[in-house]
């Protein structure tokens, strides 16, 4: 009987061996994959086990963490002025994940980033809880406040982007209506309700949409700045005061359709300065058609069209089409037809002009810090392209400054030795232009030392407003002015 007994002993040993092998497979070979599986709740528990690092504006945190009383997620995100800052921070919710900066810089904020490895190991050895690092933004609290309150007080949907032309730093990034990410940072029914409320299907005004980066609008007349830049760069016209070859009425090439101006304005053979001042569709439409699709597209691309920007939060790509016939190119050159731009894109246009033709890559994260405020990474300003030569940029500046001084953009004047250059826009949209137009204003401010601290783009879409009231100069320019003033005042 003992021979089979020994064999049974071996068999039992094999059973145990099989278990040991399986266990090694599970807990050694597959351990990383299982423990970091996104469905493994431990991943989320871990994420909320320690207070997150903060997102910082002007030296003050705009986020916080609070210990929650219930559930297995220990810390919950809080936001100061959440609705105002939502386009910057995004949200970090126990139940609904994270987006934008909260998501992109999650590694730093939770302290899991490899760049914090040393710190993390040190904390682990000394028995301290893991601490998240901070994300220092480029934003300007006063400008952001001016932008958000400006949008809020006019009541409709809209967005504002302000940039520092010399570096590309994003100073303001506002979208309205917005949402408070604090409302659904937790994991309760109340959070779910707040979350559902901001979904587009439940709120047609779509508060969750980051209009400053993710919505493209027909830029309307503000695009004429790009068209003027293309005319100067391609040598079609050498100066702002050279008479253009512009018939009135202007019948678009290859069609029998007349391209009309808004009202009875002096556009016949007007020079570009005058054409920009009164916003002549005929002049810039014809410039676009004369230059042709390809040259217009080249210039638009140099300004950043047809590409996504990573600030590091991604922005949608603005559109300037290729493969258009001359009449379509003419319409596109005055910011209609397929042309569409994000507010960020139009701020980049103004910023490139203000920075003597040099377009800087827009960014909003200045520095990443470890929990003890040591810098981990710093963003250096980076040149994206040169859409204009310095001479041509100065010509365009003087044209835009005329617009504010005596043209459609007078409401953006600041005075006090501050020179403002800008361009209004009133973009039509909807089927047969039936919907209310968008009011645009792009501008920059120049100080007495000729430096430009801020360029800004404002768009306001107000479906409830009286159609006649909407014009870039009336609705959007005052907001732009307040934002520019806020930036200038904060530098003093």
């Amino acid at each position, binding site marked *: 009987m003992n021979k089979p007994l020994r064999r049974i002993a071996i068999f039992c040993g094999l059973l145990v061996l099989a278990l040991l092998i399986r*266990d090694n497979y599970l807990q050694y070979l597959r351990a990383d994959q299982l423990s970091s599986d996104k469905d493994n709740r431990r991943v989320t528990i871990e994420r909320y086990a320690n207070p997150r690092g903060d997102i910082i504006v002007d030296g003050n945190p705009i986020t916080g963490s609070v210990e929650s009383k219930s559930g297995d997620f220990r810390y919950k995100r809080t936001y100061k002025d959440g609705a105002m800052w939502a386009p910057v921070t995004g949200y970090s919710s126990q139940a609904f994940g994270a987006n934008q900066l909260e998501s992109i810089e999650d590694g730093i904020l939770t302290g899991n980033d490899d760049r914090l490895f040393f710190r993390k190991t040190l904390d682990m050895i000394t028995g301290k809880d893991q601490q998240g690092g901070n994300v220092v933004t480029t934003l300007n609290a006063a400008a952001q406040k001016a932008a958000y309150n400006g949008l809020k007080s006019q009541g409709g949907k809209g967005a504002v982007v302000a940039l520092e032309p010399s570096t590309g730093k994003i100073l303001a990034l506002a979208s309205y209506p917005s949402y408070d990410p604090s409302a659904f940072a937790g994991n309760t029914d109340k959070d779910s309700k707040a979350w559902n409320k901001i979904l587009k299907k439940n709120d047609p005004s779509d508060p969750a949409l980051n209009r400053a980066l993710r919505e493209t609008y027909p830029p309307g007349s503000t695009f004429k700045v790009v068209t003027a830049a293309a005319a100067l760069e391609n040598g079609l016209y050498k100066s702002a005061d050279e008479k253009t070859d512009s018939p009135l009425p202007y019948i678009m090439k290859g069609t029998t359709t007349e391209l009309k101006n808004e009202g009875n304005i002096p556009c016949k053979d007007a020079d570009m300065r005058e054409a920009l001042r009164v916003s002549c569709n005929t002049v810039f439409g014809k410039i676009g058609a004369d230059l042709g699709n390809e040259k217009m597209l080249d210039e638009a691309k140099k300004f950043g069209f047809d590409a996504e920007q990573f600030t590091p939060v991604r922005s949608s790509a603005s559109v300037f089409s290729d493969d258009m016939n001359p009449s379509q190119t003419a319409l596109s050159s005055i910011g209609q037809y397929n042309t569409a731009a994000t507010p960020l894109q139009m701020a980049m246009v103004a910023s490139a002009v203000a920075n003597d033709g040099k377009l800087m890559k827009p960014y909003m994260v200045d520095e990443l810090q470890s929990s003890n405020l040591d810098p981990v990474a710093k963003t250096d300003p980076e040149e994206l392209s040169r859409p204009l030569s310095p001479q041509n940029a100065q010509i365009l500046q003087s044209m835009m400054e005329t617009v504010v001084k005596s043209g459609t953009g007078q409401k953006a004047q600041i005075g006090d030795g501050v020179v403002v250059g800008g361009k209004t826009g009133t973009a039509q949209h909807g089927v047969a232009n039936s919907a209310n137009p968008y009011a645009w204003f792009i501008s920059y401010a120049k100080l007495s030392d000729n430096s430009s601290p801020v360029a800004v783009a404002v768009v306001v879409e107000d479906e409830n407003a009286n159609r006649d009231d909407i014009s870039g100069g009336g609705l959007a320019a005052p907001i732009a002015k307040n934002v520019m003033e806020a930036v200038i005042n904060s530098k003093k």
Partner: protein
Amino acid sequence: MSSTSNTPTHHTSTIGAIGAPSRRNTELALLVFAVVIPVFAYANVGLAIDGSVPAGLLGYGLGLGLLAGIAHLVVRKFAAYADPLLLPLATLLNGLGLVVIWRLDQSKLLQSLRGFSPAAPRQLLYTAFGIALFAAVLFFLKDHRVLQRYTYISMFGALILLILPLIPGLGANLYGAKIWIRIPGLGSLQPGEFAKIVLAVFFAGYLMVKRDALALASRRFMGLYLPRGRDLGPILVVWAISILILVFETDLGTSLLFFGMFVIMLYVATERTSWIVFGLLMSAVGAVGVASFEPHIQTRVRAWLDPMREYQLSRQVTHDGILHSDQLQQSLWAFGSGGTLGTGWGQGHSDLIKFAANSDFVLATFGEELGLAGIMAILLVYGLIVERGVRTALAARDPFGKLLAVGLSGAFALQVFVVAGGVMGLIPLTGMTMPFLASGGSSVLANWALIAILIRISDTARRPAPAPAANPDAEMTQVVRPS
């Protein structure tokens, strides 16, 4: 038996040496570790969860120490030459099980579940009963060969135990498997755990008598000894019963356990490999056959093949009428998150398994909090118990003792394999519990009884001057095949 006498060198092994020291002091020393380790673990859990040593530490330590002490004294008195490892190993597992059960009692998530009540005090009570049963077995069962008398009574007893859960009003269908009975005022009981022991007694008694007939009367065919048709009877009956368990109690684990135990004992009794081949074939045919029409088994197999899909289905509203469970995936995550060294006592999240976290899935908590290292250690402890059991079988001087010891050890090994393999996703899940570790009265009681019987057999085996068989039955059987 013959091989034992032919190869005297084997007598140098721990068990079986004539005139060997009793090893009771070794047992006592090991027991100290078996008590101290869980006490440290208990303190660790408290420190991790509340930041303080749990208030019950002294009571718990004294309680476990007292129980272990009583068990040791009983062994010292009634089974002085017993194997010195079995009691400490079982005590260690039982103690660690208590710690983990208490640790899971502290989980807020589990506390928030419907029907929650602290399981640790209950388990401690069951442990006390288990030790009492252990002592009673050693006290009343002075010679394991007495059990031979009850061969056929055991058969009926086992059948009754197996049928109990099916009796309307008494049986309880919990979560798909009908292996519980509910006794008003006492809670639920798993008769299958006891049936395991009783059946082993029956098989041992039966096979001891029939082994020659089964082994010798056979035809040779393709290198295999084929049993005669009429000798196939018993295995067919056991097979049929296993299939019936599978069909009516929908419990793959119990079915596999009983059939496996029978095949092991049959093989040992007859020394015919052909029985193993037959057994494997029959269990394969039976399992596949039943799985083809039994939805509960199909669900288990599906969950085993793709636990992630099952997890996702469990989070949706499904209309297929099947209860989808995320348990297996949660268990795998627990193991994976433990990694090599684990999170440490009290710092894991195995409570995410929710239902049965402290019973069927108790190993997952060990996996997460003690890691690969801890699980390997625990598996080796189980392996050692089995090894000591098989060694006891090797050393036993009577065929009945050999068969009973190997049957019990084999069943124990199969149970560990089926449960651990189930929660680790090696084989489909079954509704059985990890011996000693899992929360559950029947399991603790039955396994302490099992250890007691093994200790009794090992004591008889190692005793310097084997007492002559007291009963005529044993004498007669020894005449059949003298050793």
